């Protein structure tokens, strides 16, 4: 399902959070939203499933404007996992937490088992989520949202607080959902880990869209590096290594770098 923002603005009281955002994510794309702290990333994401509605402009999920639907109707189209997992978790057990979204919207639960396996949550199903480590709580929160099997999935900082082991599990989930044709929209600061999984990027600065399009297009632009710098984004380390190795094509992950080294 495609996601489209048309001239979207939003303010919290007198604080402007988003200004006149226009962008579109195609169906089945994986999109990274990046930008400095306070640039509007989480606000953008909260608009995708109608938790927030635009003050100006329109957000479309597929062909449906979010303004015309209730949050519960939108929940069938887009599931959102919060920045702070503790804002999301409340059930008595991990199993109940993972099932909550599915039962609530009457979703097809066929993703639940693959998610439990991908996240290695099997041994924790009987545990109270709050007895788990922060990283596992985050996986449970992401798992519960993903299991709702919505065509669009929004994740806010999914790698924050994860060690490399859980990051790999998350990578596994993204690959799994991609194969199912889901549109995945991820707010992140962790470009080094997530760029290999991404198709597109949206870069925000002070509530305005600085770039929206294929990730390669950002790196191919003459002013791409400068744009990133102004948005609080450091040039991703694999891109830096590929440049240092004299590659004319930018690399996003270690596999590409190894291929490059093999050709030397």
């Amino acid at each position: 399902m495609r996601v489209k923002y048309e001239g979207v603005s939003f303010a919290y009281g007198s604080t402007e959070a988003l200004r006149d955002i226009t962008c579109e994510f195609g169906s089945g794309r994986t999109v990274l939203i990046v930008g400095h702290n306070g640039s509007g990333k989480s606000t953008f994401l909260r608009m995708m499933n109608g938790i927030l509605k635009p003050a100006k402009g329109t957000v479309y999920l597929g062909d449906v404007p979010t303004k015309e639907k209730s949050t519960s109707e939108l929940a069938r189209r887009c599931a959102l996992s919060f920045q702070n997992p503790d804002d999301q978790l409340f059930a008595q057990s991990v199993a109940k937490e993972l099932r909550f979204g599915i039962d609530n919207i009457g979703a097809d639960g066929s993703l639940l088992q693959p998610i439990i396996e991908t996240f290695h949550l099997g041994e924790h199903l009987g545990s109270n989520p709050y007895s788990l480590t922060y990283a596992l709580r985050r996986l449970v929160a992401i798992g519960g949202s993903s299991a709702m099997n919505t065509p669009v999935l929004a994740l806010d900082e999914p790698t924050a607080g994860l060690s490399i082991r859980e990051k790999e599990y998350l990578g596994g989930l993204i690959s799994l959902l991609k194969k199912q044709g889901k549109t995945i929209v991820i707010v992140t600061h962790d470009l080094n880990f997530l760029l290999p999984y991404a198709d597109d990027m949206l870069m925000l600065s002070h509530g305005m869209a600085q770039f929206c399009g294929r990730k390669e297009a950002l790196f191919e632009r003459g002013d791409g590096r400068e744009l990133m710098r102004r948005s609080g984004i450091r040039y991703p380390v694999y891109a830096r290594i590929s440049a240092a190795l004299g590659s004319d094509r930018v690399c996003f992950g270690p596999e590409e770098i190894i291929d490059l080294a093999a050709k030397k």
Partner: protein
Amino acid sequence: MKILSFQSFSVSYSADAPPALRNISLDVNERESVVVSGLSGSGKSTLCLAAAGLLETYPAVKRQGVILRHGKNGSEEPRTAVVLQNFYAQITYLRSTVLEEIAFPCENIGLSREETFRRVGEAVEKIRIGHLADRNPLELSGGEKQKVVLASAIAVRPDLLILDEPLSQLDPETTAYLGDVLTELKKDMALLIAENDPYLTLKVADRLVVLDEGSIVSDGRTETAINESTARYLDLPAWTVCVAEAAKKGLIRKEPASSLYELDYRSAIKMLRGHG
């Protein structure tokens, strides 16, 4: 001089769960920065809570062994400040501006108005949040809140600053300059930082402690602590990952004595270019 000393310290959260920390012996010295890394569940956060003296507030938590704390100038307790993993919980909900929020702990320890004013200004400048000064802390984004809590901790000028995953919600630019800020702070205080970000570790850590399932598996100078035996517990720098992978595939010929884990960016690039 030692400021904090764990001696055969163990922690269990409940009788049927495996211990969260097992027989930890660890010293943190004045003006020393110690980074603690390890997989999720390895005990990093428990170590931070214990170091901050916060575990004592949970009667159900079973502890064994001792933690000794030594304040400066012969005082009994070092002044300790902590930024928790769940820093959202540290916002006071009592103050309507960021400046007043940061002033709160300074007032709590009885500093004069002038001194509080001076330290708040200093902390705001260090963490670069001048633009947030008059905002309501509750209206800030996640990353902005994390910066405010960090500024509050710095403002009291602790002898020991404990940070549990301080970079989790910070943008990459902030992450980069925070490394410089912590290096500067280290001149005046000891740092105990639970963090898996290898770039921060390389920049800031005098020592790297690696935890696995509650036990210390390695404690040493950062350059030597990242090696074949600890790598599986750690996030490695990108260039280190590339060199290690290339070496495994036989793309890089290495001297038998040298480590697969090249931590220096320039040397790693040289190797990948085929000149290493």
